[in-house]
């Protein structure tokens, strides 16, 4: 039979795992962000043109 201490330990373990997962997710997001900014710096014209096109489509959709 599980005691309250066991349950508390299990919750603590889960919380620790969750914290590790969140930290890994944050690291991955920052890596993707850096990649994105590098790509924009390397191809500014392409990115700006693409953004204008996407914005144009969004504006058309919003107008409907």
């Amino acid at each position, binding site marked *: 039979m599980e005691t309250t201490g066991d349950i508390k330990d299990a919750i603590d373990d889960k919380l620790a795992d969750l914290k590790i997962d969140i930290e890994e997710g944050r690291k991955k997001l920052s890596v993707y962000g850096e990649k994105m900014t590098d790509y*924009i710096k390397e191809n*500014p014209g392409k*990115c700006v043109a693409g*953004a*204008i096109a996407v*914005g144009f489509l*969004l504006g058309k959709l*919003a107008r409907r």
Partner: protein
Amino acid sequence: MATRSQRPANGLSNDDANSVRRAHLQRASREAEQAWVHAREAVTDVRDAIDLKDMANRHPIGTVAAALGIGYVLGGGLFSRLTARVLGFGVRVGLRLAVLPMLKEEIVGIASAIAPSRNGSAAVEQSASP
């Protein structure tokens, strides 16, 4: 007497008409060339003024966000219901963030102004009672 093929209705001979046409074409080609040069100069000026590469190097995300906004406006999304909703939400949140601290300060100020006078009157009441 000149026939119709030799002398057209405008009074010019075929050779004259051809030379006039050639002159027109040359002038049009010259004007087109000038317009092309002007357009290229204008594009170069705009490119120098904007300096996209430098802007993208300094603020990559901001540049793309600005381009997205320009596209949105060009697409006619500015005067749409979605824009009105988003703007309304932003204004509401902004007002809450700006006005709530001010209100809080005012309430705290009023409360602190009232509290000493209440304490003072309570003290007076206590001292008056036997």
